[in-house]
């Protein structure tokens, strides 16, 4: 039972890294970027290519996945995302679905439609037991990496100048601009960071969720659940939402596999009805 809890946490951690970038960009720019998964996929493919073609070790390919996704994120933000900020939510949804379609078909064309795989280094394979709890090495690795990320993100968000400016801009971009905060640059940076995190999550998630060109479509729903349930104004909200979903999904499927498919959707609907502004949202006028 504890093993399954552990599995769920690892799964939730990956969901968090994948989704938290989306929640920040959504909170900051009020932009519904359904194409977030495409950045995650990009990171995943970069990691796969780095390992297969360049022969890089797994650990070296992770930062590469982050950088590649962040770079593409910043370029796209400059070029095509910026004009979208002022448009309606619906336009943004359409726009980003269009991007997803292009990413899916483009990846299919470039990389083929098959599943991609990576080979983990030996020290990350297999499992060991502690007090009767089976612990997968890779899952432990994921928990440690994502845990550190979450802590440093939370620290960066609450303790640094960048973080306080970011929070100010999320609260009210106009006022922040008036205070001399370079909101546009902040947008670009945040977008890059969010995309990069997605890329990293994509690379980390290959082992747990697989990777093929339909990735952005398949997991769009999961990211969105994390964001809508977690709210868009903090790091802790999406974190707990991702944990909750990860654990509920895994434990639920373990205990009652018959209704496994319904659990997260039902959970999402219930949460949204009872807390329409997210689990940890501050009351807004």
């Amino acid at each position, binding site marked *: 039972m504890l093993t399954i809890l552990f599995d769920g946490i690892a799964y939730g951690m990956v969901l968090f890294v994948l989704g938290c970038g989306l929640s920040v960009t959504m909170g900051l720019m009020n932009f*519904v970027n359904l194409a977030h998964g495409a950045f995650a996929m990009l990171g995943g493919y970069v990691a796969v290519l780095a390992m297969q073609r360049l022969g890089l070790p797994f650990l070296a390919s992770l930062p590469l996945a982050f950088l590649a996704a962040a770079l593409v994120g910043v370029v796209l933000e400059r070029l*095509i995302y910026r*004009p*979208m900020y002022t*448009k309606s*939510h*619906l*336009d943004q*949804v*359409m*726009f980003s*679905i*269009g*991007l*997803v*379609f*292009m*990413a*899916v*078909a*483009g990846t*299919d*064309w470039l990389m083929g439609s098959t599943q991609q795989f990576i080979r983990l280094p030996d020290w990350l394979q297999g499992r060991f037991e502690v007090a009767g709890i089976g612990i997968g090495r890779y899952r432990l690795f994921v928990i440690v990496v994502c845990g550190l990320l979450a802590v440093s993100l939370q620290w960066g968000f609450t303790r640094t100048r960048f973080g306080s400016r970011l929070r100010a801009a999320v609260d009210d971009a106009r006022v922040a601009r008036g205070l001399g905060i370079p909101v546009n640059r902040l947008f670009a940076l945040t977008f890059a960071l969010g995309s990069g995190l997605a890329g990293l999550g994509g690379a980390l998630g290959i082992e747990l969720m697989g990777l093929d060109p339909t990735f952005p*479509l398949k997991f769009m*729903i999961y990211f*969105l*659940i994390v964001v*809508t349930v977690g709210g868009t104004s903090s790091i802790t909200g999406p974190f707990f939402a991702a944990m909750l979903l990860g654990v509920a999904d895994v434990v639920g499927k373990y205990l009652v596999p018959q209704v496994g*498919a*319904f659990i997260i*959707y*039902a959970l*999402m*609907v219930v949460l*949204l*009805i009872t807390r*329409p*502004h997210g689990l940890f949202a501050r009351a807004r006028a």
Partner: protein
Amino acid sequence: MTMPVLETRVRQALFASRRWHPAEIVFWCLAFAAFLLFPRNLLLLNEIAILALFALSLDLILGYAGIVSLGHAAFLGMGAYAAGLLAKHVTADPFAGLLAGMGAAGLLGLVTSPLVLRGTDLTRLMITLGVALILYELANSFSTLTGGADGLQGIMMAPVLGLFDFDIFGRTAYLYSLSVLFLLFLIARRVVHSPFGLSLRAIRDNPLRAAASGVPNDRRLAAVYTLAAAYAGAAGALLAQTTQFVSLDVLDFHRSADLMLVLIIGGAGYLYGGLIGAIAFKLLQDLIASFTPQYWMFWIGLFLVLFVLGGREMIHGAVKAAAARFARLGKGAAR
């Protein structure tokens, strides 16, 4: 201005918005003429008519009441399965199936309407999506009833009105679907120009003021959500009857997403948006798919991106100019 004069002007102004525009008449004439003009493409036309009805349904809630939805496929699927099961187990009459589809989907709409009354756009998108996903899983789980992933097999339809059998060329199918679309369109057209329709627009424009003007927002939204659900159910029923088959795909996410695209392409809030969008979407899909079967998704995506980035104004501008020319022509002919 004296009162009687003003009253007349008020009446005229109110009448103007619901008057039949010549371009509308041309549109429907063309739709029916397509039966003779494109005898090789009746199946595609049938799909367009069904998608148009489905889009009309979304337009009722999105364009007129401002409710966004990423789960409209739930109602399409409900209608399709209800009509399919009725035909398989009870009666093969098409109209009975149509009513069953509308009824079942409408009921689902009524039951789920409280869920979409609250929250922001984003919450609504997610909740509708969640409902559709749950329905999808339910349909998959109850495979003894629905056929699960194999689809609902063995639907045999009786002839429409006892006269017109569903043929392999899609002749009956297209005329049947188009007639249902036209009829439901007429009803929708009346509804949006009624006091009820006006109150929906009021809620969409400004819910705060609508309530302060005496509009019971929640009840009206629930009513139109139910109506739209029934419309989507009708589209589902038509789909089940004309293809004599229902697959889980009717409940899939991409149905809802495509539908949004259709309405965005055509423009929401004037009833014809869904119809025009459906035509454009299907033709585009068909065209691109015949060029590059593998990668049509890419081109659709590119089209969408460009469309939102700035192409829409161009296209809608062109449509408006064309409509204006039609109007002038129409008036010229009338004189």
